[in-house]
Structures are given as C-alpha cells and as structure tokens.
C-alpha cells in the first residue's frame, strides 16, 4: 500500500463528520413525510383514474343507450301530430339527453310496477331426456367455443347419408379452422350466454335462414348455463315434451336492422293499443333501451329499438287493456 494514497485519504478520515444523528433523523422524517405524501397522491390519482376508466367502460361498452322510456307517459302532442296520417297512433318520444336523470327515476317506478305475470323467458331446461332427443353434444359446443375467433363463421351441414351432423369453423378470410361432427341432430341456429349475449351463430350450408320463432334450450356447460336457440320447426317440436315450448310468443311479421343499429320490427297490433314496451335480456334483466312504436291502420304496429347489439332480446308488451305479450328478438 502506498503511503502517498493514505496521505491523500487521511484528510477524509480526519475530517470531523458534520452530519449528526439528530440531523439525519430530522432529514429522514422529512423524507418520509414527503414520500408518504407522494404515495397518497399517487394512490388518489390511481383511484381517480380507475374510477374514470370504470365509468367510461360502463358508459361505452354497454351499447344500450342511456334510458329513455317515455312510453310510460305517452306524448299527446306527438299523437296529435301523427293522427293526421294514421288513425290510432301512439308514439313514444325519444328522450333528450339532459333528461336522463328523470328517465332513471321512471325506470325505477317502471320496474316496481312491472306486472309479475311475465314469467321468465320460456326456456326449455334441457333434461337428460331432451338432451338425448336433440342429441345435444356439450363437448362439441365447448370445443367450438374454445377455438372460435371473433370473425369466424360456423356452418352446419349433414354428411352424406345423414350419418352425422358436422359444423365447420372457418376464419374470416375463408380458411378452414376446424370441423366438429356429432351424431345427426338438429343444429341450434345460435348459441348465447344465459343473458342472450351472442357466443356464435350457426349458418346452414344451404343458406336457409332461421325463422324468428326460436326455442331456447338451456344447458349447463363448464362456462355456466348457455342457451341453444333452435328453429321452432315441426321436427324440433316433435322432439320436445308437449309443454316444453312457449305458446304465447307474438309472431313477428317482418324485421330488419338499420345501419345505425336500430331494430325495426313489425307486429300485429292486436285488439288493444300498446301501453308499454320493455326490453329484457334473455335471462329477464330489463335493459334501458330507447324504443318507440307506431300503430298503423292495417292492424300492425311498427316497433323501433335503438342501438341494439348482437344478442337475443325478450321484448314484453303491455296493452292498455292489461293484457301482456312478448316476443323474442334476435339481432344478428
């Protein structure tokens, strides 16, 4: 070791330490205070950001618009305006955005006064017998759910000789992804979650479109309950127990979806004017969707539901004479 270096560093060794313990503790206290303030600020900012994100997600993810059930108190002025063109017209005006608060109050009142005579959607709970009759293969459905992508198509076809029913899953670009075959059976035209949210639609290879008369069969899967929607044709009805399918579903005469996601449905007006229309998910939860309806002279009523998403809705109608009807509306 060189003494030259020791000499150099001796000044540091001999220097009186000018930082006392008390000074260090005071400094540490101040530092801790500053750190805890910074932590609190960060926490507050984090909470604020999380709340903002949650509000934004809640606002924009759910495609149903904010509330506008003004049909509860029909607008007489609107009635008067349209009465010139159509006899017996009832219009529910869309709410202006600034009236959202009032609308939510209406919703609560509406929910409380909702007649309990509306049973949950007449879903057939798939007993072992029903499952066997329809040859429902839960494993095949779960396989499809596990491989299907958002842009994929599922196409159903019977094999030659009808020895089995196969579902092919193709990518958005047209490439074949997979084929799942089951015993020959009616294919559901749509598979949804219990609340009606679309999991996948099944197209027929011959291009045949399903009618609007659908029957939902509820089955249990590893993802919880899911609904298999079958075309209510005679073949299917024969396979179900007599009381296993709904009989009070209102027939839809025509329906279409406008580019702005407004569903337009034509139905028979029936004997009594409509007093109220409520929209529900397939499992019965009410949705605050803007809707309006116009009764025409030809005995039909046009119902418009704004901003619908791809799902299956349970639409319930209350008439002025107290009778109630419903229909299932499938948005593709």
């Amino acid at each position, binding site marked *: 070791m060189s003494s030259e270096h020791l000499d150099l560093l001796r000044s540091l060794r001999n*220097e*009186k330490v000018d*930082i006392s313990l008390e000074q260090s503790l005071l400094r540490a206290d101040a530092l801790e205070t500053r750190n805890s303030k910074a932590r609190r600020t960060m926490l507050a900012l984090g909470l604020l950001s999380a709340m903002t994100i949650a509000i934004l997600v809640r606002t924009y993810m759910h495609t149903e618009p904010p509330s506008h059930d003004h049909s509860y108190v029909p607008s007489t002025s609107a009635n008067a305006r349209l009465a010139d063109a159509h006899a017996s017209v009832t219009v529910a005006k869309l709410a202006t955005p600034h009236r959202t608060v009032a609308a939510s109050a209406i919703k609560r009142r509406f929910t409380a006064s909702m007649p309990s005579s509306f049973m949950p959607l007449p879903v057939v709970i798939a007993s072992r017998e029903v499952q066997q009759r329809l040859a429902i293969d839960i494993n095949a459905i779960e396989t499809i759910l596990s491989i299907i992508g958002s842009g994929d198509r599922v196409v159903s076809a019977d094999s030659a000789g009808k020895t089995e029913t196969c579902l092919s899953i193709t990518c958005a670009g047209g490439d074949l992804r997979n084929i799942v075959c089951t015993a020959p059976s009616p294919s559901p035209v749509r598979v949804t979650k219990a609340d009606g949210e679309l999991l996948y639609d099944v197209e027929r290879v011959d291009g045949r479109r399903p009618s609007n008369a659908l029957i939902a069969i509820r089955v249990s899967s590893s993802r919880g309950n899911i609904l298999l929607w079958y075309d209510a044709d005679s073949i299917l009805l024969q396979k179900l127990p007599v009381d296993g399918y709904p009989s009070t579903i209102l027939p839809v005469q025509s329906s279409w979806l406008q580019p702005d996601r407004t569903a337009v449905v034509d139905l028979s007006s029936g004997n009594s004017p409509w007093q109220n229309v409520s929209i529900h998910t397939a499992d019965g939860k009410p949705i605050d969707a803007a809707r309006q309806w116009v009764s025409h002279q030809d005995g039909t009523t046009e119902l418009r539901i704004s901003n619908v998403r791809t799902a299956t809705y349970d639409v319930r109608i209350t008439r002025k004479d107290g009778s109630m009807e419903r229909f299932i509306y499938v948005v593709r």
Partner: protein
Amino acid sequence: MKIGLRDDPAFLEALSLHHDDLARFARSLTRSRDDAQDLVAETILKTLESWNSVRDPQAFRTYLFRTAHRVYMRQQLRRRLFHPWPKDLDIVASDPQPDVHTDASLVRAMLQRLPAQYRECLVMIDVLGWTPAEVVEIHGGTVGGLKARLLRAREALRKEAMRGQHE
C-alpha cells in the same frame, strides 16, 4: 401500522453505533453535504423497513452499508439520467480546521472522477478501515478480486492527484 423512526429505541441505539461511519461514507462518496444527508436519510428509512429481520448487531452494520450502497447506486443513476451534476462543488464550511476541509474537498473532487466501484472500495477500506472480507460481504465477489480492484483504485487516485498537481 408503520413504525416511526423514534418509536424503536433499539433501532436508534444500533444506528447510533454506526451513524458516524455511515455519514463519513456518505460524505466521502457524494459531492455535497446536502447529497450526503439525503443518502444517509434514505438509507435510514430503508433499513428501518427491514429492522425486524436484522436485529443482530453485526448483521445490522452489514445491512446498513449494503443498503447505503444500493441507495447510492440508485441516486447515481437517477442523477445521471435526470439531474446532471452542477458545476459548483461543495462550499467549504467555516470550521476550526479549514486546511483539513480544503484537503478533504479536493480529495472528494478527485474521488468523484473515479468510477463508482473504485470510489466505494477506497472509502470503505482506506477511510472507514474495513477489512476486504467485510467489504466483500456488501459488494459481493471475492477478496482477491476486491484487493485487485483496490490496487487499481489507488493507482487511479494517484494519477488524479498527479494530474491535479500538473494542472
């Protein structure tokens, strides 16, 4: 509930035994008294967080200086990235030993020009009087490696001093 600095007499007692060495370590490594105080304060807070696991007095000293080493390295990085060193050096305090202070300031300035790992081992061994084995406990590596680094550090310091003389 978080323990306050002054709530644990045992911690204060253990700290008081090594505080002066810690302050000298910090003072030798940093350019200013203010930076040294920051280093000491942050080291104390970090050490208090793990106080329960280092109640053994010998382990406490090692842990205290290991923490100081980490805090110092982090401060160096932070300083390099966000706050470049100011041009002015530490102001020499009015002290009864002005010559010692002036020498110390010059040596500190020379130390600042050495790599951080040279600086630390010089301070720990030549200023605080630690053995190479004790320093290895903190920095890791081998005693042989440390001794080699110490030799290179001394040589580098000597060159710095010679350069200062020529300038």
